[in-house]
């Protein structure tokens, strides 16, 4: 398993490096410039969070399609390896990366001191759910498509469409609230997002894994 994990790291090292730079850079600015811990630090946290989503989308998009790009999939296919071991190594890399991404986001969240009525905007649970959603959707696309860029692009589009659809349904249903200042409305939206995004992520991950395990690709 160790060398499989090493292989996954080698396959994704540039994405991990870029992600690390993009996630840590806003904090580095915030700490070096000694900005105030309310709105300026919140801005750094939001930038870091956005970069984390992008990193996870790239990581997921590259997970299976990436090994087809560098031709290592053909090599691996001739080795006496079970498919589930490959899935396990890919998942393990994601879990390690997720822990490494989550730690600075959580640290940033503990540093922010927004006014009480806006404190609910610093939402680490929502971030965790979104990351799982991005990875689940990306995993499905990477198991179907041949290029990691297609998989990443489709992940971003699916997320944006889901968000746009949710806004459309909310407007049609007459949901009107100031999400910036209304904590209860924010909690309601968060609950419904979790109710939709987690099952979608699990279903996408399940279909992607099934597609990969049944060996339709190299």
């Amino acid at each position, binding site marked *: 398993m160790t060398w499989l994990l090493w292989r996954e790291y080698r396959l994704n090292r*540039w*994405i991990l490096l*870029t*992600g690390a*730079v*993009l996630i840590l*850079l*806003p904090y580095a*600015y915030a700490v*070096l*410039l000694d900005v105030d811990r309310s709105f300026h630090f919140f801005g750094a946290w939001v930038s870091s969070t956005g*970069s984390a989503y*992008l*990193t996870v989308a*790239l990581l997921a*998009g*590259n997970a299976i*399609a*990436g090994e*087809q*790009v*560098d031709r290592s999939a053909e090599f691996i296919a001739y080795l006496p390896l079970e498919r589930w071991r490959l899935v396990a190594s890919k998942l393990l890399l994601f879990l390690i990366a997720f822990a490494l991404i989550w730690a600075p986001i959580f640290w940033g969240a503990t540093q922010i001191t927004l006014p009480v009525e806006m404190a609910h905007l610093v939402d680490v649970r929502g971030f965790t759910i979104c990351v799982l959603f991005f990875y689940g959707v990306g995993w499905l696309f990477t198991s179907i*498509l*041949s*290029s*990691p*860029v*297609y*998989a*990443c*692009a*489709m992940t*971003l*589009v699916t997320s*944006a*469409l889901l*968000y*746009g659809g949710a*806004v*459309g349904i909310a*407007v049609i249903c007459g949901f*009107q609230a*100031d999400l910036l200042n209304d904590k209860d409305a924010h909690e309601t939206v968060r609950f419904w997002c979790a109710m939709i995004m987690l099952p979608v992520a699990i279903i996408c991950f399940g279909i992607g894994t099934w597609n990969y395990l049944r060996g339709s690709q190299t």
Partner: protein
Amino acid sequence: MTWLLWREYRLNRFVLAAGAVLVILPYVIAALCLPIEGAESTELFIGAWIWGGFFSVLSVALLGGNVIAGERADRSAEFVAYLPLERWQMLAGKLLFCLTAIAVIWTIHLLIRTVLLSDQPAADIRWLTICFGVTFGASWLCSSLQLSPAVASAMGFGANIVIWGCIAAISMTVEQTDGYTPDLIERHVAHILVRYAIIGLPFSAVCFSLGTWNYLRRSEP
């Protein structure tokens, strides 16, 4: 040339489709939110402009990252290498395709700015133009060097963020003042824009030249 352009379209059609959705969707969401009581159309469309701009830059990064590395990923580079084609013809096909796509994205934003946000200084097309240039140049270089289009896109997008962030941070440090007034913020933003243009555009040109040189001289596809 026509079939080279068709090939580029086939190679990048998912990226183009994704880019089209990502660029237009924020404006659709803003339009959907208009009926909400108390919603300000200007604020909504400024938000949509920022998201649309962010997604546009991301789309340019994906396009730039996929344009050379993508043909290695789907093995069509090997096929094309055996055809009686000059490298510069393939380069011209790629460039024409990318520049057309970027021009379309840019024109969409210009139209939206002209029609909906003409009096809003936040919706500044110059920022977007420089962002497009830097991101495309960096992605193009990485795409000509890398095997994976995802890695090339990530590095191209990351390079733009790092350059912009460094310039903004240095400007904020150099021009640090105790209090901020709207005039002062406007002047700061203008200074950052000038520095971003002075550093970003030559950086983009150098990256693009290096990427082109590498693509033209490579013996392997």
